[in-house]
Every structure is written in structure tokens, then in C-alpha cells.
């Protein structure tokens, strides 16, 4: 216990040192990313730590959360919706119906050539029907003032509402993937989730009608209690308080905003930890660990392993989706170009494994520590590289080395992951 507290105190000290030496703004920005990553790491820990499921599609579930923010709290675009919204909705329903019809056909009819042919006819026909309805509708939406909008717009609801919706979207995707890939060889889930994540991000990147694609969707509202810096700088009581603390109003306002975000994210994180600790120490949690440790004997006890795996896969993905939604509403923009598997999938994995898989507090510690490392190297790495190469003559080699500082992060993370797996496979805070 004291060891764990000391570890957390050590990580806290890192943030304090960053605040004192660099700036509090940077320190808090890293803390916020760390807290968001911690929520994602909780989701991964549920899947990996409790159930041994290997999900390499965290990026995709986080992106779905971001999409929920766009759809729920984005600015409404009535003209865009009127131009093709119902058409797109109809097309999606038609597509879903043809897949549903194919599934029913497959289950209800006898195997044979007749079934294969009707199935193909239903699927191909459904696809062309879908495209016939979808293409003109999407084109109409996208041609509605493409420089400002060109999308169907959001509902304009508060950002906080989007968080659970993000979780629900991610849960839905997880259900579909889990239904197919769970119960087979464990590698299949890893490969299937790797694929679905790429596809989700490709959809967000290319479907301009949905979230403006690479044109980026900006001006998403902030979640409820968080004020805007510009507004804060108009409040007299805030200005006098800032002056008495010796901060200038601009720095003070951005620090306050980040603090409020940190509080908000901290609350969500604590809620997730509380719930999953309760779940872990209930009969359900014991069953999950029994399944993880010995699937065969759990099955012999009458537990439906695949079904339990599906449940926890959905739960964990939903948590990741919520974190993804939180992240997009903090950024205030949806930039699909920013979704990168190394940053959003594998970094989270490193956090969970370094922290201690199977232990919630370990995941949180890992997220804060690795998150700090990742971002601090980004801001001080070029400086260090500059200092290292200061003695060298200017030339292509020196510029190459200075430019390559950012790639050192990948190398460092890989080495950290390998070292932890080899020498301390249970992580910094092992499972009890």
C-alpha cells in the first residue's frame, strides 16, 4: 500500500516539477491527456486484465466517441439535413435491412446452391439499392455550402450528453465485432479489431457529409461547467483574484479552464474505477477472473465463456468510447487526421501493461506516467537532441538527428514495453 502511494506521489511530483520548470499550462495539459488516457486504459484493462481479450482497435472506439460528440453537440445545419438527411437515413436503414434479411435467410433456409444464390442476390441487390438511395443524398448534403458546412450537422445538444452516446456507439461496434471474432482463436480478435479501427477512421476521414472529413469540424461546444477563456477574462472577480495571486489574466484563465477539465475528467475516472472495483469484487468479477485463468474449467462449471467475453468486450469498449467523446469535446474539434494507431491504440496498451494489467489503480498510474513521458518528450525532445548535437557541425546529419527526435518516442516506448514485459510482467502495481 505504501509502495503504491509512493508511486502515485512520484508521478504527482513529475507533474509538479513540469509545472515549476516548464509551465503550469503544459503540466495541466499533460495531466488532462493523462486522465483521458487513464479512462481509456480502464476500458482496456477490463478487456485484457479481467478477461484476457486482446483489443487492438482502441483508436476506432475512441474515434466513435468523437463522432458522437459531433452528432450530438455539433452545430445544427438545417439546410444540409433538409438536402439529404432523410435520404441518408433511409439508405442506412435499407442497408441494415438487406443484411438482416440475408442473416434471416441464412438461418431459415436449407444449405445448398439455392440458398447461396438467393443470399448473393439479396446482398448484391441490397448494396445497389443502398447506393442508389445513398449517393444522391450524400452528394446533396455535401454540396450545401461546402466551405462552411457540407455535413448533416449535429443536434446542438449539450456536450455532456454526447459522452454516454459515444459509449453507446462504441458498444454497438464492439457487439458487432465481438459477435464475429470472439470464441475463435485469440489472435483473430486482435486482427479483426485492428481492421475495424482503420475502417472507422477511414469512414470519418472520407465521409464529408458525416463530420466534414479532413476539412475538420470545429467549434464544438465545451461541456457544461467549463467556461471560455475570453469570457473569464471579462469577469471582474476573476481578474482581481488572478492579480492577487500574481498571474496575468490570460495565463490564469487558461489554467483555470484546464483545472476544471481536470476535475471533470477526474470525476468520470473515479466513477469508472468505483464501478469496476465493485464489479471486480462481486461474484461476476470472480467469475470473470476464473474464466481468464482457466477457460476450460470455467466452461466445465457451466459458464458461457464466449458470452461473458462478449459482455466484457462491449463494456470495455464503451468506456473507451466515453473517453474518446470526452477528448473530442475538450479539443473542441473533430480532426480525423489526428487518429493514429500508435498514439491511440498501442500507447494505451503500454500504459496498461506498464501500470499493471488486472489492477485498476495500476492502469491509472501507468496512464499518468506514460502519458507524461509521451508528451514531455514531445516538448523537450528536440531541445535535448539540439543540446546533444550542439558540438556537431551544421549539416544534413545534424538536421536529420534534430528532426528525428520525435521518432525516439516510438523507440523508447517499445523498449519500455519490452523491458516491463520481460522483467516485471505484472507491472508497477500488480494484481492482488
Amino acid at each position, binding site marked *: 500500500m505504501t509502495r503504491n502511494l509512493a508511486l502515485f506521489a512520484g508521478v504527482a511530483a513529475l507533474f509538479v516539477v513540469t509545472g515549476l520548470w516548464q509551465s503550469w499550462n503544459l503540466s495541466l495539459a499533460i495531466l488532462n491527456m493523462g486522465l483521458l488516457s487513464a479512462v481509456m486504459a480502464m476500458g482496456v484493462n477490463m478487456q485484457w486484465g479481467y478477461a*484476457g481479450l*486482446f483489443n*487492438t482497435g482502441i483508436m476506432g472506439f475512441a474515434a466513435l466517441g468523437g463522432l458522437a460528440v459531433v452528432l450530438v453537440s455539433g452545430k445544427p445545419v438545417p439546410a444540409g439535413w433538409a438536402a439529404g438527411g432523410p435520404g441518408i437515413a433511409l439508405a442506412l436503414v435499407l442497408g441494415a435491412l438487406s443484411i438482416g434479411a440475408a442473416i434471416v435467410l441464412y438461418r431459415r433456409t436449407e444449405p445448398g446452391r439455392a440458398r447461396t444464390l438467393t443470399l448473393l442476390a439479396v446482398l448484391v441487390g441490397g*448494396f445497389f439499392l443502398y447506393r442508389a438511395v445513398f449517393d444522391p443524398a450524400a452528394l446533396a448534403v455535401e454540396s450545401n455550402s461546402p466551405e462552411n458546412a457540407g455535413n448533416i450537422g449535429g443536434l446542438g445538444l449539450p456536450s455532456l450528453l454526447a459522452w454516454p452516446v459515444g459509449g453507446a456507439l462504441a458498444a454497438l461496434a464492439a457487439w458487432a465485432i465481438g459477435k*464475429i*471474432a470472439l470464441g*475463435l*482463436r*485469440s*489472435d*483473430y480478435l*486482435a*486482427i*479483426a479489431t*485492428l*481492421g*475495424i479501427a*482503420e*475502417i472507422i477512421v*477511414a*469512414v470519418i*476521414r*472520407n465521409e464529408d457529409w458525416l463530420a466534414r472529413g479532413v476539412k475538420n469540424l470545429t467549434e464544438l461546444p465545451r461541456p457544461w461547467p467549463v467556461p471560455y477563456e475570453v469570457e473569464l477574462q471579462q469577469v471582474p472577480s476573476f481578474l482581481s483574484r488572478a492579480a492577487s495571486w500574481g498571474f496575468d489574466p490570460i495565463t490564469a484563465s487558461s489554467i483555470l479552464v484546464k483545472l476544471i477539465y481536470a476535475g471533470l475528467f477526474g470525476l468520470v475516472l473515479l466513477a469508472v474505477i468505483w464501478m469496476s472495483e465493485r464489479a471486480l469484487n462481486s461474484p461476476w468479477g470472480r467469475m470473470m477472473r476464473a474464466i481468464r485463468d482457466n477457460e476450460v474449467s470455467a466452461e466445465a462449471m457451466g459458464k458461457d465463456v464466449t458470452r461473458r467475453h462478449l459482455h466484457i468486450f462491449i463494456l470495455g469498449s464503451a468506456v473507451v468510447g466515453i473517453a474518446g467523446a470526452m477528448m473530442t469535446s475538450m479539443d473542441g474539434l473533430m480532426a480525423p487526421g489526428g487518429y493514429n*494507431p*500508435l498514439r491511440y491504440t*498501442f500507447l494505451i*496498451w503500454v500504459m496498461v*501493461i506498464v501500470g499493471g494489467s488486472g489492477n485498476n489503480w495500476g492502469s491509472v498510474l501507468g496512464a499518468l506516467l506514460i502519458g507524461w513521458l509521451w508528451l514531455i518528450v514531445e516538448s523537450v525532445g528536440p531541445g535535448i537532441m539540439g543540446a546533444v548535437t550542439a558540438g556537431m557541425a551544421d549539416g544534413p546529419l545534424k538536421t*536529420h538527428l534534430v*528532426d*528525428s527526435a520525435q*521518432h*525516439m*518516442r*516510438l*523507440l*523508447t*516506448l*517499445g*523498449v519500455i*514495453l*519490452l523491458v516491463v*514485459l*520481460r522483467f516485471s*510482467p505484472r507491472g508497477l502495481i500488480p494484481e492482488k
Partner: protein
Amino acid sequence: MDILNGLITFLNFVFVPGLAYGSQLALGALGVTLIYGILRFSNFAHGDTMAFGTMATILFTWWLQSMGINFGVLPTALLALPFGIAVTAVFLLATDRVIYRFYRRQKAASTILVIVSLGVMFVMNGVVRLIIGVDDQNFADGARFVISAGDFKTMTGLPEGLAIKSTQLITVVTAVLVVVFLFWFLQKTRTGKSMRAFSDNEDLALLSGINPDRVVQVTWILTAALATIAGVLYGLDKSFKPYTYYLLLLPIFASAIVGGLGSPLGAIAGGFVIAFSEVTVTYAWKKVLGYWLPENLAPDSLVQLLSTDYKFAVSFSILILVLLFLPTGLFKGKSV
């Protein structure tokens, strides 16, 4: 209706590119399947192994070019290839010695090995980007075309041209040679036979005196060769960019699984299945159908089933279909 011109358009835009891409995927999938068969885990670092091998080859190519050596009409990269393979093999053997061997001795679960390979992927990714950077590198030299579209038109007098890039021909010929060599090696040589025995039944193989360390080493060397050749061919045909090679992981895994993990024959079949599906589904068929259909039926739209941005969705969908209906793949790979 104009069957011949339609056919030539089809060959030019679908068949020839598909054949080249399929050969590249098949070589990549062979590496994945070998590792799966012998070492029993899905190697997530394979895409980055390809990138590493290609990088090494590119560096040797530049070195050769700087000394004024070239390979005539063939790309200099082919001369540099053996060096690239050697460097990659040394790197992979070192990785095995430092990292994988520990887990093998422990008989660690395959998921652990997958995560370890993830760590290796990070390291390789970092090394490649550190050395050569993240940008596109075009290192193809020598003759560009075996037949260019213009030459073909003047030769045959047809309005449609059939262009065959030299890199496409090289890809297919190299792939055939490599596959023939690999199968000869696995079927006829003593080492190859011991590898197959090890893959089929590890305990029995050990019992009959097969040296596991040697089998593992040969596997890594073969993997290095396959990955480097696949990566260099892909880079010659398109261009080299580290991130693209990471993204190749999905179609390569899909190929290996479609064919049946652990089955070399399956990996080849899977590579072509994935490549041709990808090209067919993302190709705009307007021109070909315009030739093949009667005039009044000729399509107005592009007749492109999916935009090329979604080519990963194709390999993914095939993967899903195989998982649903044929989890052991076309050629009955290892199940469970």
C-alpha cells in the same frame, strides 16, 4: 460491343496490377504464416519487418548508386537485395535471441507473444523512422516499362493500351522464383522437413532429435528474406513509406487467415484472393463495361463499388466472411 478492347482495359487496370499486388501480399503472408506455423503467434511486427528490410535495401541501393554501379535495365535495388536480407536476418535473429527466446523457453501463451511482437514493432518502427525518416522514398531505377501503353497501341493498332511496368514483371517473376525455392526447401531438404515436422507436432519433432533452436533460426532467416523481398517489391512497384507498410499488416494478415494460418499454399492463395478482390471492388468499371455491354446498356456512372479510400474494408470484409464461415481458412490451417 467490343470484347477485345474491353479485355485489354481489364488486363491493364485490373489484372496486371492485381497480379503484382497479389504476389507482394502472398510473399508477406508467407512470412506471417511461417512464423505462425513454427513459433505459434501472429507477428504484429511483420509490416515493420518489411519496412526495415526495404530500408536496409534502399540504403545499399544508394550506396551502390553512389559508386556508379547499376543493374542495367533492372533496378539497382535487386543487386542490393541480398545485403538487405542479410541485415534484416541479423536483426531478426538478434531480436529472437534477446526477446522471443525467453518467452519460448517459458512456454508463454500466444497472446503474450503477440504483445511482445507489438513491442518489437514499436522498436522497429522507431529505428526505421530514425534512420530514413517518414517520407516517401522512390528508389526504382532502370527501365520503367516492359511495354508502355503507347508502344502497345502502335504495335497492335488498338485504341486501348496495355502497359506493363517493369516492376510488375519483376514482382511476379521474383515471387514465382521465391515460392518455388521455398516449396523445394520445405519439401525436399532435411531442414525444411524438420521445420514441417516441428510445425505439425512439436513434441514428436523434439523426440525424434530435431534441434528446435536451429528450426527457429532458419524460420527467422526465411522470414527476413520473405519480408524484405515482399517489401522491396512493393516499394519498387509503388513507393516506400514506413506508415504504408504498417497499414499492409491488415491485408497480409487477412491473406494468411483466408488461406489458413500455418499453410504456405494457403498464404499464396489468400494473397491473390485479397489482392484481386481489392482491385476489383475499388476499380471504376465504367470503361470496361462500356466496351463489353451493348451501347444502350452502357453505364453513366463510374460503376465503382467502393472508393479506393476503403480498400482496407475489402480485406476486412473477406476476413470477416472467412471467420464466420470457414475459420480454418481455405487450406485448413491450424484451428483453435
